[in-house]
C-alpha cells in the first residue's frame, strides 16, 4: 500500500469516528413519542425511592429511569431529574437499576442506559428517552404535561 493511500485510510477512519460521534450526540437524550404506551406496574419493576417502595405516580409526570452499574451518564441524568423534582413537587423521578434485572431489560427492550420512560399521571408511557437526557428534552416533556 502506498503511503498516500494509507494516510487516506487513516483520515477516513478519523472522519468516520467523528461523524459517528456527531450523529450519536445529536440523537442521544432526545424524547421519542409513544402512542398507546403500556401501563407501568410499580410493584413489578420494584420501584424504590428513599428506601421505600413507590406506590403512586407523580401527579403531573413521572420520569422512570433505568440505570446500570457501569454507567457514567446514569449519574448525570439522575441528578438532572432530582433537581427537577425539587422545583416541581408534582414531578416524580424513579431510578431502577437493571444490572440484575434482565427481565426488565427484555420487557422494555432496553439496549442502553440510561433509558427513561416518561409516564403520565396514570403511569402510562407517553415517551421514551434513550441516553443521557438533555435539559431541553426535560423542559419539552414537562411542557406537554402543563396543568
Amino acid at each position, binding site marked *: *500500500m502506498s*503511503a498516500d493511500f*494509507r*494516510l487516506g*485510510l*487513516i483520515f477516513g*477512519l*478519523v472522519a*468516520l*469516528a*467523528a461523524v*459517528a*460521534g456527531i450523529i*450519536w*450526540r445529536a440523537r442521544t437524550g432526545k424524547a421519542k413519542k409513544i402512542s398507546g404506551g403500556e401501563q407501568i406496574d410499580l410493584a413489578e419493576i420494584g420501584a424504590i425511592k428513599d428506601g421505600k417502595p413507590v406506590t403512586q405516580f407523580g401527579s403531573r409526570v413521572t420520569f422512570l429511569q433505568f*440505570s*446500570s*452499574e*457501569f*454507567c*457514567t*451518564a*446514569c*449519574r*448525570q441524568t439522575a*441528578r438532572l431529574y432530582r433537581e427537577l423534582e425539587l422545583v416541581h413537587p408534582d414531578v416524580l423521578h424513579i*431510578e431502577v*437499576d*437493571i*444490572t*440484575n434485572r*434482565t427481565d426488565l*431489560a*427484555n420487557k422494555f427492550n*432496553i*439496549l*442502553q*442506559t*440510561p433509558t427513561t420512560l416518561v409516564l403520565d399521571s396514570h403511569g402510562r408511557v407517553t415517551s421514551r428517552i434513550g*441516553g*443521557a437526557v438533555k435539559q431541553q428534552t426535560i423542559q419539552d416533556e414537562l411542557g406537554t404535561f402543563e396543568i
Partner: protein
Amino acid sequence: MSTTTPAGIDPRGPRFGAAITSALLLVTVYLALDAATLNIAYYLLSAATVLFAIGALFGNSKHPYGWIFRTFVKPRLAAPKELEDPRPPQFAQGVGLFVAAIGLVLHQLAVPSGLAIAAAAAFIAAFLNAAFGFCLGCQIYVGLQRIGIIRKH
C-alpha cells in the same frame, strides 16, 4: 444501585487517557497497513493491550495515563464540576483489552488485516470517549447481559 460505591474520580482523567490511547491506536493502524511496518504495529498493539490490562484490573488511578493526568494536567485545571464512578471507565478498559487481544491473536494466526481492523475498532471507541464523552459501559453493558455474555452477579 450497588451497595458499595467507590470514591469518585475526576471524569476528565479517563478522557485524557482515552485521547492518548486513540492517538497510539491510530499510529498502530497506520503502521499495520504496510507489510514493512506490520511488526512495529504488533509491538504497539501489544503495549496498548498491556495498558488496557492495567486499566481493567487496577483502574484509572493506577494507570500510567492516570498518573500523568494527576501530576501534570490536573493541577492546571479548575476543580471538576462533579466526580464520577471509577467503574464505568474500568469496564471500558476491559472491553479495550478484549478487542486489542483479539487483534494480537488474529495477527498470530496470520489473518490478513486482522490487527488493523481490531486496532481501528478500538480507536473508534477511544476516540468517541475522548472527543464526545461516549461511555461504552452505558451503551453495551445491558445488551451484553441480555444476550448472556455477562452473567448476573
